[in-house]
């Protein structure tokens, strides 16, 4: 009986084996999700954070470095404290706090490390280092925060902070991960890729409770971190700090550039803040406070504030007129104050006199000749053609769009075109009498202090500029500076036209800015007054020096400080002397600026 039953039993045994093998094949070979899950389980990637590059000033003085801070970590399971009182005394921690921190650590994990004492200073670390060996379960974790030894150049250097969610999403290279620090403004942001270095990774194995079980595959896949590149800035720390001292308590900008290279020597935005405030644990709190401050200390005025250029723009008008052949050094206009207001000066004036005396009616008339060249018989149409042609020439001076400085959020200002007036007044419904304010640098013109300083460079260089920049060398190598900072930009004005301009500027300061005069240093300068509908005018001064071999071009804005010849001219003059001589021969002028009483 039952002859076929052993066969059925054998078939059943085979079926069972086949089912098991098929299921195993599907999870072991076909489905690779388990491999990933296993890695997530047992292999921990520990990022080895590289040292961020340091930033030096042009003379090799340290501006930014990494300050190690030490956290005392605890693994509760391994920690044995026999004498709590002694422990508290050694580590200078109140008993209650120790109890609380330990309880929190235990609550987090008995076997994973938690922070026991945060941010121990270097000296304190040196003191407790010897005791650590007596307490298994305690160890030091080192972190680095940015530190600024002289608390200077906060806006130019910028700050770093934890990467935001949106930045993470935009990071197509997938370099960053949650909690990483990135440059958020200034050079820190612009040179993020150079400064950040390269992260390394260590792979270690952990068991189910998260306890370290040694390196994965003996560290075969581990990579070492590569420290970031050091950057030499174009800033002159001494000059920067001096400028900050002068601008303390005021609002405004100072931008000083080396004309021959476009290297920014000093860039001050007042009010400023101590860059050390935006580091480490206090970042969030301080950032919130600075961000709420009605004085807007985080606002980077030299590249973000825009003002009407005022009188300095008359030089641009003169140069365009000369280049076009519309003006000659001998072109003379009457100072007709029925056209536009002016101050008392000899009348009539030629071009030299017009610059020297900043004659408004002169430019009202000269600008009309530049704009209305009778190309069209229709005066509206003719103005439109003239304005747009003129605008093209103005843009060459680095105006109307961001210069491309190596900082983020640079504004471009605005040079109006016919479209703007068409929009405001309607097409064919405006002519020269509508736009004549442009002739003296008012009206719809807007320029940043950086563009202003750059314009001074053009006057000093007699017709060219290099894009202003903050980087002088990367890892000590000047050739690594981005190529765009090594391109010479010609502005389309022949060199010969600049002599008259420079002479007039050198003369001008005797008239309008006598405070700026420095014995033995010939300064070519020009005052300006940026009209401010909201209060006192802004005091503005531009200069370069020495006139025959310009080493510094400077633009100074002091907001609500009235006439340019006082606050701005004095500040600029002191800065020039500081840079060229290294010391100040006029302490009374320094006191005058520091006192800050310019309206009287």
């Amino acid at each position, binding site marked *: *009986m*039952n002859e076929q*039953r*052993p066969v*059925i*039993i*054998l078939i*059943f*045994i*085979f079926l*069972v*084996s086949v*089912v*098991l*093998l098929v*299921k*195993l*094949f599907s*999870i*072991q*070979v076909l*489905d*690779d*999700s*388990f*491999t990933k*899950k*296993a*890695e997530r*389980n*047992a*292999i921990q990637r520990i990022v080895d954070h590289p040292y961020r590059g340091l930033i030096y000033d042009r003379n090799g003085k340290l501006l930014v470095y990494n300050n190690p801070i030490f956290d005392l970590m605890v693994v509760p399971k391994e920690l044995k404290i026999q004498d709590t009182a002694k422990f508290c005394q050694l580590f200078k921690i109140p008993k209650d706090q120790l109890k609380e921190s330990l309880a929190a650590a235990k609550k987090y994990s008995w076997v994973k490390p938690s922070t026991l004492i945060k941010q121990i200073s270097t000296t304190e670390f040196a003191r407790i280092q010897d005791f650590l060996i007596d307490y298994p379960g305690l160890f030091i974790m080192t972190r680095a925060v940015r530190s600024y030894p002289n608390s200077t150049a906060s806006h130019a250097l910028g700050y770093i902070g934890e990467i935001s969610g949106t930045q993470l999403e935009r990071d197509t290279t997938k370099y960053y991960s949650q909690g990483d620090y990135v440059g958020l403004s200034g050079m820190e942001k612009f040179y993020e890729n150079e400064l950040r270095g390269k992260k390394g990774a260590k792979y270690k*194995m*952990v*068991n*189910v*409770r998260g306890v370290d*079980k*040694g390196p994965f595959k003996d560290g075969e896949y581990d990579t070492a971190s590569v420290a970031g590149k050091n950057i030499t800035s174009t800033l002159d720390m001494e000059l920067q700090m001096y400028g900050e001292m002068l601008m303390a308590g005021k609002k405004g900008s100072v931008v000083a550039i080396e004309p021959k290279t476009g290297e920014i020597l000093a860039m001050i935005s007042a009010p400023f803040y101590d860059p050390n405030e935006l580091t480490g644990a206090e970042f969030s709190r301080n950032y919130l406070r600075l961000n709420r401050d009605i004085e807007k200390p985080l606002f980077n005025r030299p590249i973000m504030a825009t003002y009407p250029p005022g009188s300095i723009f008359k030089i641009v008008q003169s140069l365009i007129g000369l280049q076009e052949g519309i003006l000659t050094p001998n072109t003379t206009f009457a100072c007709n104050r029925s056209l536009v207001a002016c101050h008392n000066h000899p009348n009539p004036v030629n071009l030299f006199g017009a610059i020297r005396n900043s004659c408004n009616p002169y430019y009202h008339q000269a600008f009309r000749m530049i704009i209305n060249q009778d190309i069209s018989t229709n005066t509206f149409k003719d103005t439109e053609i003239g304005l747009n042609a003129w605008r093209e020439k103005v843009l060459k001076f680095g105006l109307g769009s961001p210069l491309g400085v190596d900082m983020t959020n640079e504004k471009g200002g605005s040079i109006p075109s016919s479209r703007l007036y068409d929009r405001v007044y309607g097409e064919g419904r405006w002519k020269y009498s509508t736009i004549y304010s442009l002739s003296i640098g008012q009206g719809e013109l807007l320029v940043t202090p950086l563009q202003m300083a750059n314009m001074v460079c053009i006057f000093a260089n007699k017709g060219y500029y290099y894009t202003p920049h903050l980087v002088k060398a990367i890892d000590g190598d000047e050739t690594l500076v981005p190529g765009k900072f090594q391109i010479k930009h010609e502005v389309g004005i022949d060199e010969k036209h600049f002599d008259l301009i420079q002479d007039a500027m050198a003369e001008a300061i005797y008239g309008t800015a006598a405070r700026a005069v420095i014995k033995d240093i010939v300064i070519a300068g020009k005052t300006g007054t940026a009209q401010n509908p909201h209060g006192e005018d802004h005091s503005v001064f531009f200069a370069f020096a020495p006139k025959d071999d310009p080493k510094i071009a400077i633009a100074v804005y002091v907001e609500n400080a009235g006439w340019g010849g006082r606050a701005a001219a004095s500040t600029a003059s002191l800065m020039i002397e500081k840079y060229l001589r290294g010391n100040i021969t006029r302490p009374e002028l320094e006191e005058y600026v520091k006192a800050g009483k310019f309206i009287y």
Partner: protein
Amino acid sequence: MRESDIQINRVDWIAVSIYFALVFIGWINIYAAVFDSQYPKEIWDLSINSGQQLVRIGISIALITLIMVADYRFFENLALPIYILFIGILVITPFLGKEVNGQVLSVGFGSFRIQPGEFAKLTTALALAKVMERPTFDLSKKNYQIIAFSILLIPVGLILLQPDTGTAMVYFSVLLMFYREGLPQWFFVLGFGLVAVTLLGLGIENNLYLAGAIVIVVAILVSLGRRTWQRTLVFSLIGLGLIAYIYSLDYVVGKLPPHQQNRIMVLFNPNIDPLGVGWNVTQSKIAIGSGGLLGKGYLEGTQTKFDFVPEQHTDFIFCTLGEEFGWVGSLIVIGLFTALLYRLVVMAERQKTRFSRIYGYCVVSILLFHFMINIAMTIGLFPVVGIPLPFFSYGGSSLWSFTILLFIFIKLDSSRAFQLGRLN
């Protein structure tokens, strides 16, 4: 030619070789399961499980020697007394044994402990063989069915008191032997039907669907055959009974201890709680699944070594194999088990006495069940029940009981020349 020479020559070396191969692979996997690369120890270090297991393997060899030199009649003669002795031990285990996780599984002194539930499988197999060997014993008859099931169900009842559901389930594997010995087919049709309805009842959320399906099946069956009122009544009653059974299932499951309820739930949806109830199965599948085709290499596994898989050296020892040796390793071990089971069926069929054949099929049944259920549970095909993988899992009771179980049969097989043919 002396009797002992003949015996040695007749020993089935294929089965013996497969046994040692499995024990060896099991042993190196136990070492892998407890290996700690930071504090590496030798495989025979007595302070770790693999060293301990080596001692147990040595004792197993001693046991094998004892079995091989014993008289083959010894097992037949002692079958019933040993069975009764172990029933006695099972009775007192709950009172004298050591309680672990709410279960009382082992008795003994100090570090020497045995799990009577493991050995009672062997004694039950011997007792069944002894009782059923009589030529008149016919499993198609009700009286003999009652006797056979009684011998089976007494130890099952006692083991359920411990309570050890996994081990208790193993006893039902001898249904395979019953099948070979002529238990009517309708037993199995009914049994599988009931199991299927149970699984469906637990698996399908809404009992109404299942009840509806049963009504339709009954209606079709009634309409197909002869339409007598008796037949209609019987089918309708069976249908109603099944429906009542389905609805009672939820109630019964609700009465089960929570950990068993959870194990059943996890079978139907392993993802319900991967960190809680589903942890064992999830981690076990990750370990095996991450092995790939060729595995991560010996001692290179991470999941089992770092305790992600619970019970990694006992019930989940297959995970270590799957992780470090991959599908190829699984294939080899499953192939060895299949070969052993095939060999045992062949051996059982060549026995001259019914006693030997019945016992042989008991060995096949028990080994097959352990092998099937243990691996199925590690890959999520079966709920987690605590039964070891024969010859593989760490632990003395498990290794010894399987060794004795197997080698008594090998002994009986080698002595078959001396046995009087009593087959019918």
